[in-house]
């Protein structure tokens, strides 16, 4: 029997029972669409997080007080270091040949107010090279002028969201805002960008690091943000930082250096695993659809016993009868898979249009895996009824028994 004839024969059987066929197609397409949508969302989340980190620059190194071996987990917020990081440490790091920028950072929470409007936010105390290190850009005005970071000047730069919240449509440049108990003159507004290791830079106020130390009464630094001169020099810069701080801290290795690429890698792995997990959960629905195919095909075999008997009487050997029923199951699962694929891709596209900031992306492996599982499901669950049909006694089958 020729393959096109087998498929045509199966096609006539499928179209003869439209309700049954539609039911199976629906189940299979929902299963495949679930796999596609969930993996697209997972992949989208991965790309989004990766993108957010990459926007901050890939040469980034974060120096934390405390000697904790960390490769991407939560940074040690409460350092266990016998020595705190200081502005002088940051200045010393800048002297290293492989380190391009070394920006001291102090973080604290304080209310920021302008007129009657007030907002409780995180305050970032830093130096004039912060924009270079984090690749931030200025929307209005300017960033801090080059100055000794030990000078506590009363100027600030606002994040875009904070500026809008406090000033709404008014130009904030030159205006005075109150940060905690002190007043700062707004000299610039940052353009919106990704988060900096857990901080939303658009909803913050940046003040000079010495001002922040004075405001929060902290003599030490929260961290130092450094960058290497190139991506290739990242490892060398890391070693230089450890060496310089060791020298300054009397030979103690009391800092932790986090690399941006290690953080990205860790998040990438976590989100990849999550994507696989949700794809696996969605694939269960494909197995359920497969069981439905098997049940419906078993009913079909029992209703078409006389047909099987006739095929055998006409000289169809066992394998031919089996092929006919298997091709029915395969056509059902493939058609369901294709419909599901289209549904999934269209849904992913619609989510993309609906939430443009979230890059929903359907990975090719998900398409291939969904179609592969679909075919395997069809063949696997179709083989049981097909074998049952092939094994029917032709005499009994002809009599419909």
């Amino acid at each position: 029997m020729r393959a096109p004839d087998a498929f045509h024969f199966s096609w006539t059987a499928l179209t003869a029972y439209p309700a049954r066929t539609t039911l199976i197609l629906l189940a299979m397409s929902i299963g495949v669409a679930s796999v596609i949508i969930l993996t697209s969302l997972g992949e989208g989340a991965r790309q989004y997080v990766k993108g957010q980190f990459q926007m901050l620059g890939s040469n980034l190194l974060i120096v934390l007080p405390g000697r904790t071996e960390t490769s991407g987990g939560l940074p040690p917020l409460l350092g266990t270091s016998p020595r705190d990081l200081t502005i002088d440490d940051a200045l010393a790091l800048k002297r290293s040949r492989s380190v391009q920028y070394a920006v001291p950072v102090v973080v604290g929470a304080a209310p920021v107010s302008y007129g009657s409007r007030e907002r409780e936010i995180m305050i970032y105390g830093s130096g004039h090279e912060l924009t270079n290190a984090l690749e931030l850009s200025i929307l209005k005005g300017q960033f801090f002028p080059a100055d000794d970071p030990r000078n506590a000047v009363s100027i600030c730069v606002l994040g875009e969201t904070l500026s809008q919240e406090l000033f709404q449509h008014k130009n904030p440049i030159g205006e005075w805002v109150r940060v905690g108990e002190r007043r700062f003159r707004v000299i610039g507004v940052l353009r919106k960008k990704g988060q900096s290791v857990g901080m939303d830079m658009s909803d913050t106020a940046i003040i000079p690091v010495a001002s922040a130390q004075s405001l929060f009464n902290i003599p030490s630094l929260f961290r130092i943000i450094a960058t290497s001169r190139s991506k290739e020099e990242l490892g060398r810069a890391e070693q230089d930082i450890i060496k310089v701080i060791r020298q300054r801290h009397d030979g103690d290795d009391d800092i932790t250096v986090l690399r941006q690429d290690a953080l990205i890698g860790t998040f990438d792995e976590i989100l990849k695993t999550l994507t696989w997990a949700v794809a696996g959960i969605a694939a269960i629905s494909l197995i359920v659809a497969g069981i439905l195919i098997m049940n419906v095909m078993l009913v079909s075999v029992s209703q078409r016993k006389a047909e099987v008997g006739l095929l055998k009487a006409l000289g169809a050997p066992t394998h031919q009868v089996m092929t006919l029923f298997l091709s029915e199951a395969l056509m059902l699962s493939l058609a369901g898979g294709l419909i599901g694929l289209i549904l999934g891709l269209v849904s992913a596209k619609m989510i993309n249009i609906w939430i443009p900031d979230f890059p929903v992306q359907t990975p090719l492996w998900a398409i291939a895996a969904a179609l592969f599982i679909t075919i395997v499901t069809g063949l696997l669950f179709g083989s049981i009824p097909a074998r049952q049909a092939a094994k029917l006694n032709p005499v009994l089958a002809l009599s419909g028994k």
Partner: protein
Amino acid sequence: MIKLRDICRSFEVGDETVHALDHINLDIAQGEYLSIMGASGSGKSTLLNMLGLLDIPNSGSYQFEDKELTTLSEEKRASFRRDKIGFIFQSFHLIPRLTAAGNLELPLMLMGMSPSERHKLTSEVLEDLGLADRAKHLPKQLSGGQQQRVAIARAMILKPPLLLADEPTGNLDTHSGTEVIKVLEELNASGITLLVVTHDLDLGKRAKRRIKMLDGRIIKDQVQEKPAEKVIL
């Protein structure tokens, strides 16, 4: 052409063993026209299934054109059935979703013939049967007689030497029955061996050789020089 020797076939029904065929010996020559009659449960359908290779005997020998068939594998039995034996059933057994032409094409499709060859052959056969205008009709759109004629054409499309008919007129009115018998007898006249299993005495009497069965045995095997040609069905 056919030699059955000591064919036995029994079935287990509950605790009892039913001997459907009990040491059957039968020789059928090429071109013969036989009828097998008997009451229900006499074994006539089992014998037909045995001759059609749809069933396997428990013991005995079945030779067809000097070839032993009882030892054939399932696959070989299927291909032998396709090439050498045609079946006609009381309930026609046309596939309801296929057209008359589609049903007729089935054996050709199973043997892997190309669509163009199949269409050519089925068109010719439907033309011969006077059913050319019914080619695209589904079985439910055909009369009983037309359905049985399509079924006969399907059985004969590969020109097998043996035609087995199980109550071929059982579901037909007198007129359609007569038409169908006429077609079958014409086929027999062309040299095809025709074996009809029937309850119908009148139909049975039309055969030149009449076999009567009882309890799985042949109790009468009679050759009539003048078959009852004018028997009204």
